[in-house]
């Protein structure tokens, strides 16, 4: 028999829906108890996430290897030739090396600008089920991290600290659809607002329609009052396309972020900005083509021996 519903069932549904609407209202009005619930949950979850990060690490590496099968094929062949013990050691070392490389590059960036940073490991990546882009790091208020602090990787901007807990913090990535940052174009100093789009690409909206922007232009953070939420001069990304529609009110451009948000291992939180604006000093250098040495051999009929000439 199909369910027809009764008064008790209807009453239950009404009670549940009213309770939910009550909770939404309380949360939107900023009641402390509700935010305390979330903070308490996160504090309780942090040890579980740390343990999970340690346990899941080999599986995550495996998934990463599958995703980048072409690039790691040679490495896999090399690993096959070694015994199990060496293979395990190498895998553990690989994780540490990758984090060390990321740490070195992020410290280089922060050192060049003169930022005071706190380094942190990424212990969790937020589920995309809620259409947000976040990560959780293993440092919080006990390490001097607070909300609205800039987060960097070795390549540039990663995001901003959204919530800081005792020993962890939630970082809103620059790719999050709700993310907005004031940006300026390196060199020309044109300003605009960059917004995340849920992917590694963002959209820049210039404030002045008379200015021009070109493909390949580098974008830097304009900075905020007292360096929060954004310190000035942080590299954000590169312009990959410009929309020059004649009817548009403002000019827009597609931007590819320098940071790859799916491979973040170690990040740095800027706890104190530089004493002076680093201006354009953090713009990443353009890649230079490496000269390939070639050898040309001229064969002369009748000659005793050909002489090779090296050219670059």
């Amino acid at each position, binding site marked *: 028999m199909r369910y027809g519903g009764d008064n008790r069932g209807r009453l239950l549904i009404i009670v549940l829906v009213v309770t939910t609407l009550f909770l*939404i209202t309380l*949360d939107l009005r900023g009641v402390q108890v509700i935010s305390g619930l979330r903070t308490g949950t996160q504090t309780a979850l942090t040890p579980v996430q740390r343990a999970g990060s340690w346990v899941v690490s080999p599986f*995550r590496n495996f998934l990463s290897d599958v995703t980048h099968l072409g690039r790691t094929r040679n490495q896999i062949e090399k690993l096959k030739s070694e015994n199990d013990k060496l293979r395990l050691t190498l895998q553990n070392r690989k994780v540490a090396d990758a984090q060390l490389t990321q740490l070195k590059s992020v410290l280089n960036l922060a050192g060049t600008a003169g930022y005071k940073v706190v380094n942190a490991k990424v212990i969790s990546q937020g589920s995309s089920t809620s259409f947000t882009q976040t990560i959780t790091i293993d440092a919080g208020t006990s390490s001097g991290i607070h909300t609205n602090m800039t987060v960097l990787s070795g390549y540039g901007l990663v995001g901003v600290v959204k919530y800081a807990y005792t020993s962890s913090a939630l970082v809103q990535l620059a790719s999050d659809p709700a993310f907005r940052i004031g940006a300026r174009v390196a060199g020309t100093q044109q300003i605009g607002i960059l917004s995340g789009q849920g992917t590694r690409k963002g959209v820049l909206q210039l404030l002045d329609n008379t200015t021009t922007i070109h493909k390949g232009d580098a974008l830097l953070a304009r900075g905020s009052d007292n360096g929060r939420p954004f310190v000035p001069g942080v590299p954000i990304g590169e312009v990959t396309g410009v929309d020059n529609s004649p009817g548009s009110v403002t000019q827009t451009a597609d931007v590819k972020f320098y940071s790859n948000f799916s491979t973040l291992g170690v990040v740095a939180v800027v706890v104190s900005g530089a004493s002076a604006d680093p201006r354009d000093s953090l713009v990443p250098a353009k890649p230079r083509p490496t000269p390939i040495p070639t050898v040309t051999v001229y064969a002369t009929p009748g000659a005793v021996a050909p002489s090779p000439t090296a050219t670059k």
Partner: protein
Amino acid sequence: MSLRSFLLSSPIFLGVFLFQEGFVTQLRLPAGGINLLLVVALIWSALSTPEIGALTGFGAGIAMDLSQTSPGPLGHWTLVLIAACYTIAFLGYGDDNIRGNPINIVLLTTIGVVASQIVYLILGLMLGQQIGSLGNIFFLLAGSAFWTAIISPLILKVISYLHSSIFGTRTRL
């Protein structure tokens, strides 16, 4: 009796919540991954009465709202899951064509996951949230449907066993 049985099921959902937050989110699965708590709640509801379905949605929704990755206010996911779980339980209640067939439950759960996310998105828009590009939304919805269709058959037997242990053997697959 039903309420007592429902309370007995709360440790199961707490365990799933801890597993989701501590382990599943670490795997960084492609295409947005899966929300195990959402899938388990919908399967659980498909095997339950509408009242238990609504209560399950309420409990699972509160847990999902307490997740650090939930951008909306507390109650956002709860409201969506009360409706989704009640609807799924209502559709399946008394209809052995749905409840007795694992394929139908998997199909119902997959549609339920996608529908829940769409409703969540619409509700989020009404509450002033940013949702990003349409392409990304379609990609994530397709990813959710894919992972749900993969994972649901694998966990259906276990959930069915646990459900029948708590609520009796009539709904066991």
